[in-house]
């Protein structure tokens, strides 16, 4: 299982090489970064069958036994997340070849992006709680800097807000880790879980849960803690927003949250209920606020809050079907939200504005962008043949099965609101009369088209993941969450 370590080493090496030679040699950083993200994608696709064969495989770093050393754990959930993260990262990198051309010092962008990717991969494969925290910080700090990459006043403001909220979240998480360490005297996740299972649950675990919920909730931008997300995700350059919204909040937020609560703390029912409520609230608030936005990227950012609400809601229900639906929605959302942000970036690249009131009729001039945007918007708002429909359907059916009729009704209503604001986006941006100012606009360059077309293709085809042949990909991931505290036995079994 040495391959796992390369998920961290390759992006780190790429980032450091960019810093070393990116300024001197002109296209060096482009080549290095695209090459390494391609390698990572291939590795991620390769590692999936391995996870299927072994259920759980553990790599002991430098040969130390897990409670003493750090172990990397590959199970269904991490291989699923690896595929999502590296797929989006690769496509975003291809897109950024031309898009980031207009920014100065592109190699800094590349280095920071690779550090962020290393952080996300590190979070996903780590089997050690403190190690997870550090990689979360690697990803976050690179993320704060990337949000401010345009160095305009708005970017800096958004980045500052994000940095303060994000580091507050990290500190809460660190406090939780410290308390858990004192209580269990170990840092390995499986080991913590096995120590906790021998003790009576008390006030301390509640305090730890509160700290983790606040911390990861801030990182995920669940509703009481969401204020930073619309600013940060709309001010960043388009490739960065696509990554932040598409995979970042899911890796450091949803993945870490579910790993901690399901596999370490053993999915306590109270926490699940809170997650469900938070999910529903995020769903509603995000959707309602998205309607009134004029800025395209801001609308998408609020839509992210709403859609992540769906995922958290599904995880909170906690039945097998719901978790499957939640993870499927996570995959879909990663694809269509990054597609939509790239699309907004393409519109901004050609037209120079993101305001819905000023745009109009762009679809005629930019057919590929228009078509991709249409597919993404239809998929996210849950129109039948597309992937988004199936994942929302599963979540709603699961909540009906579990007996939460009210929440299911809200989910349906929110889906309708979602359709409404995406139709607004379609009509105002692509359809209608072409403004005089945009007579001269051209379709975006090839590399940008390529990413959008591939992502649109995935949006259409992702529904096939539910077919029995491909279903295992999702099934393995949801099994890990479902097994709850049995995770420790699987990991200990794999060590021996």
């Amino acid at each position, binding site marked *: 299982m040495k391959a796992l370590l390369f998920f961290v080493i390759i992006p780190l090496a790429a980032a450091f090489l960019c810093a070393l030679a990116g300024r001197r040699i002109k296209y060096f950083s482009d080549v290095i970064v695209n090459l390494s993200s391609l390698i990572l994608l291939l590795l991620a696709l390769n590692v999936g069958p391995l996870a299927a064969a072994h259920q759980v495989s553990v790599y002991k770093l430098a040969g130390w036994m897990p409670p003493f050393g750090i172990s990397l754990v590959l199970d269904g959930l991490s291989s699923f997340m690896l595929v999502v993260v590296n797929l989006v990262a690769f496509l975003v990198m291809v897109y950024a070849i031309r898009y980031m051309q207009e920014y100065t010092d592109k190699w800094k962008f590349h280095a920071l992006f690779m550090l962020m990717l290393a952080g996300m991969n590190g979070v996903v494969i780590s089997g050690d709680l403190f190690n997870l925290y550090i990689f979360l910080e690697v990803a976050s*700090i690179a993320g704060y800097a990337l949000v401010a990459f345009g160095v305009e006043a708005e970017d*800096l*403001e958004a980045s*500052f807000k994000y940095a303060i909220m994000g580091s*507050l979240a990290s500190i809460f998480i660190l406090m939780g880790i410290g308390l858990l360490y*004192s209580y269990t005297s170990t840092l390995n996740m499986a080991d913590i879980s096995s120590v906790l299972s021998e003790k009576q649950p008390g006030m301390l675990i509640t305090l730890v849960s509160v700290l983790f919920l606040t911390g990861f909730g801030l990182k995920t931008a669940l509703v009481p803690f969401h204020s930073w997300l619309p600013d940060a995700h709309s001010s960043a350059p388009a490739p960065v927003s696509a990554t932040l919204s598409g995979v970042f909040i899911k890796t450091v937020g949803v993945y870490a949250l579910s790993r901690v609560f399901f596999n370490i703390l053993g999915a306590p029912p109270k926490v699940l209920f809170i997650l469900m409520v938070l999910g529903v609230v995020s769903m509603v608030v995000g959707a309602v606020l998205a309607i009134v936005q004029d800025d395209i990227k801001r609308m998408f950012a609020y839509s992210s809050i709403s859609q992540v609400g769906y995922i958290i809601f599904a995880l909170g229900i906690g039945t097998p079907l719901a978790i499957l639906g939640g993870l499927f929605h996570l995959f879909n959302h990663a694809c269509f939200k990054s597609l939509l942000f790239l699309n907004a970036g393409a519109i901004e690249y050609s037209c120079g504005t993101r305001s819905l009131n000023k745009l109009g009729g762009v679809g005629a001039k930019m057919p590929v962008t228009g078509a991709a945007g249409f597919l993404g918007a239809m998929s996210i708002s849950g129109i039948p043949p597309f992937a988004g429909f199936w994942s929302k359907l599963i979540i709603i059916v699961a909540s009906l099965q579990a007996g939460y009729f009210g929440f299911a009704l809200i989910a349906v209503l929110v889906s309708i609101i979602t359709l409404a604001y995406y139709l607004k986006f379609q009509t105002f941006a692509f359809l209608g009369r072409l403004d005089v100012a945009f007579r001269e606009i051209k379709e975006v360059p090839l590399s940008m088209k390529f990413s959008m077309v591939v992502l649109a293709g995935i949006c259409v085809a992702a529904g096939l993941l539910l077919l029995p042949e491909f279903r295992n990909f999702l099934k393995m991931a949801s099994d890990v969450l479902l097994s709850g505290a049995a995770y420790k036995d699987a990991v200990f079994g794999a060590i021996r």
Partner: protein
Amino acid sequence: MSLYFLCFVLFCVGLYCVLRKRNIIKIIIGLGIIEYAVNLFIILIGYRTQGRAPILDNKQEILNMVDPLPQAMVLTTIVIGLALTALVVSLAVRIYEKYGTFDITKIRRLKG
């Protein structure tokens, strides 16, 4: 126990500063205070009464040594704190250049 609680009080002083102050530099200072509190807390939980520093000596028997693992953890978090402080201060300096103020209630170009 009382030490742990005092550590939490320090944590809350910093939290109050971050939540309620309007000056960017004050917010950064508040974050620094919170970080100190957490670092101190992690070291406190690893302390052993009458313990020795975790540096081995060939001549002496190893007995009663404080827990070295929290120290390794805090070494890492101090570094993270430094990187974060540097980044946030540079953001603050740039914000001052653009807006001419450190007041977060006036730095409101983004709405919603």
